[in-house]
């Protein structure tokens, strides 16, 4: 089983453990998205799931008549925190330490993975149970632990589906959103036995049966677990409290049953005060799962006698976040509370699917976060800022008011400045057009030529296949407007 899993992790796009770039080697977004668009099952799965949650979210948000104020407060709390991040991180460290926890600082994925692997090895254990966590996905922790002989069991239902299916996550909240119930049943039937308790005989595809199968499969792992690994939704600087918001109870299992708990959390997850939670605990569940409140929220401060892990480690992760912080436009991306409302509302995500974004952060937030965390040197990362029509639906639903279209355009500028595939020619064309557009006389002459030769324009153009493969070109008018004006009005 070990060998199989090692092969599997090596196979996923040749990622190296811990480099945090599990998707390197991905084709650029347009090609990956085109493939996804052609996959009817995927399209149907995504359409069904995103539309279900989209409508429910709208209802949940409409229940609160002060939503706009909550959104504004969430934005301001995050901005205030980011502008004093050094202060709040130091305060958090003091609070956590005073409460019996140990704080570690990891500048990058490799360092975070090494810290976690060393902590696990120090317990003498060779397996860990994991709460769903974007940060540990981002740094490729499971693969890094695997390389050290430690097996990490994902316990969130969707993460379990992804892990058993040797798949990649495609959604922030529901990593297996691209799978429908029938596919999930097949994965459980064929794969569960390789990892532990097999799926029940005759497992059907009702969500209740599938959830029951996961309950039985994971229960033995929870009960014997000595080490749990989590992320956190929030860290409160003044109290040292960590908060994990979840639905299934797998989080509670990992946070309370093991003797050692290791939480890997991005530095931007800190909030200054206990009171600040009153905003996010209202906006996150409604934005995320469209619930007034998610089933379980766990809050813990260091360690407690007789209750939960006796050993608690907090690994504070940078891994590119300070680069994002340094960009005055891009900085707002760090407000993100990973609710995934922007994914669910995004028409591009709905059709392209999460894998096309080539990162654990898909959808609109991924299109702005990934190129900032990883840079824009690879083709996929350079293509992400263009993976949007700038329709603005993401900004509308964002509970911390990240102006994703603004950041996308800002990142496009960075990509265009760097040149690279397609952008040199494009820049030349933009410059040429700029020359014409700054000379109305030349522009008018050009328009007239286009109008006079309109009978010669074919419906499809070889050089314009991006447009004409699926759309007719517009019919050119007999004369441009400025000529009509000159003849009729001036």
């Amino acid at each position, binding site marked *: 089983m070990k060998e199989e899993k090692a092969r599997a992790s090596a196979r996923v796009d040749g990622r190296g453990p811990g480099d945090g770039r599990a998707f390197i080697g991905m084709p650029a977004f347009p090609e990956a998205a085109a493939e996804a668009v052609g996959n009817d099952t995927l399209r149907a799965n995504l359409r069904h799931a995103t539309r279900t949650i989209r409508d429910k979210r709208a209802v949940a948000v409409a229940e609160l008549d002060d939503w706009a104020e909550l959104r504004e407060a969430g934005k301001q709390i995050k901005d205030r925190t980011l502008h004093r991040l050094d202060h709040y991180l130091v305060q958090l460290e003091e609070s956590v330490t005073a409460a019996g926890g140990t704080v570690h600082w990891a500048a990058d994925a490799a360092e975070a993975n090494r810290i976690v692997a060393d902590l696990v090895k120090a317990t003498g254990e060779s397996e860990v149970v994991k709460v769903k966590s974007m940060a540990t996905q981002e740094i490729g922790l499971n693969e890094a632990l695997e390389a050290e002989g430690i097996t990490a069991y994902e316990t969130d239902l969707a993460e379990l589906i992804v892990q058993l299916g040797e798949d990649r996550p495609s959604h922030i909240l*529901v990593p297996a959103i691209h799978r429908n119930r029938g596919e999930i049943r097949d994965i459980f039937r064929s794969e569960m036995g390789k990892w532990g308790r097999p799926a029940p005989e005759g497992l059907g595809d009702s969500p209740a049966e599938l959830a029951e199968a996961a309950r039985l499969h994971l229960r033995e792992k929870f009960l014997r677990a000595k080490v749990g690994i989590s992320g956190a939704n929030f860290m409160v600087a003044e109290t040292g409290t960590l908060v994990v918001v979840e639905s299934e109870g797998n989080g509670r299992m990992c946070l309370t049953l093991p003797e050692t708990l290791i939480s890997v959390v991005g530095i931007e997850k800190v909030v200054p005060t206990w009171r600040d939670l009153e905003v996010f605990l209202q906006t996150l569940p409604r934005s995320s799962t469209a619930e007034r409140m998610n089933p379980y929220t766990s809050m813990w401060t260091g360690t407690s006698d*007789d209750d939960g892990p006796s050993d608690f480690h907090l690994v504070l992760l940078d891994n590119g976040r*300070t*680069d994002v912080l340094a960009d005055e436009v891009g900085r707002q991306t760090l407000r993100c509370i990973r609710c995934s409302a922007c994914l669910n509302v995004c028409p591009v995500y709905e059709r392209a699917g999460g894998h096309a974004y080539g990162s654990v952060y898909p959808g609109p937030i991924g299109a702005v976060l990934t190129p900032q965390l990883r840079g824009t040197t690879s083709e996929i990362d350079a293509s992400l800022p263009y993976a949007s029509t700038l329709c603005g639906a993401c900004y509308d639903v964002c509970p911390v008011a990240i102006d994703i279209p603004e950041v996308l355009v800002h990142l496009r500028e960075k990509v265009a400045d760097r040149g690279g595939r397609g952008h040199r020619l494009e820049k030349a064309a933009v410059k040429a057009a700029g020359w014409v557009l700054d000379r109305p006389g030349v522009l008018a002459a050009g328009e007239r030529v286009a109008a006079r030769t309109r009978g010669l324009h074919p419906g499809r153009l070889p050089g314009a296949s991006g447009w004409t493969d699926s759309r007719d070109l517009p019919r050119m008018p007999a004369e441009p407007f400025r000529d009509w004006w000159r003849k009729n009005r001036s």
Partner: protein
Amino acid sequence: MSSPTTPSSRDRILGRVRAALAGAPDVPPPSRGYATAHTADDPAALLDLLHENLADYRAKVHRGTEAELPSLVERLLREHGAGSVAVPPGLPAVWLSRTTVEQRHDRGGRVPAGDRTSPAGAVPDATLTPYELDATDAVVTGCALAIAETGTIVLDGGPGQGRRSLTLVPDLHICVVRTADQIVASVPRALPRLDPGHPLTWISGPSATSDIELDRVEGVHGPRTLHVVLLVDAEDGGGG
């Protein structure tokens, strides 16, 4: 700070943060124009709202008086077919006075040393292991408070609540809310009443997942059945 990693990583990160923010204009403290509650502070209305919201997320809700509680608990355990029940320290013994299922007392949790033995009688001075909890069918607890607007009960490990795993591993959780003093309207009203120094568990309905086609299904790893008993004064009327 006695950071166990190389001090340079801490210094590097903090240095990068400071460099990133150099010259950035300060941001004022946040404005909090949102409501502290979305509901009027009428106890009867809050009780009804809590009831409604708990039920909306598939908790099974009962109202009963202190006097009715023992037989209600007895009935719920019996109807569930429970053979054993985990008992947190400090749980009023009378709550379990009518049931005959095996009581498994747990020592753990945040209870003053003098209160470590349950009034129910002789109690082993031990905590139940995860396996023992897994073999226990039910748990009965009180709570720290309940939030009407969200249908949430909050446990803080205080008397009658026990350790976090007690209300997690057994498949049936019966939680008693003293409606006279434990219901708050909203999340902003709840937080000031909670001590972040204690491990807190916020529970809104039984365990659930939306991981299959983003459709909510109840019952995954936490208790699949959650009964909430709203303890009311005799004149408010009881009945399960």
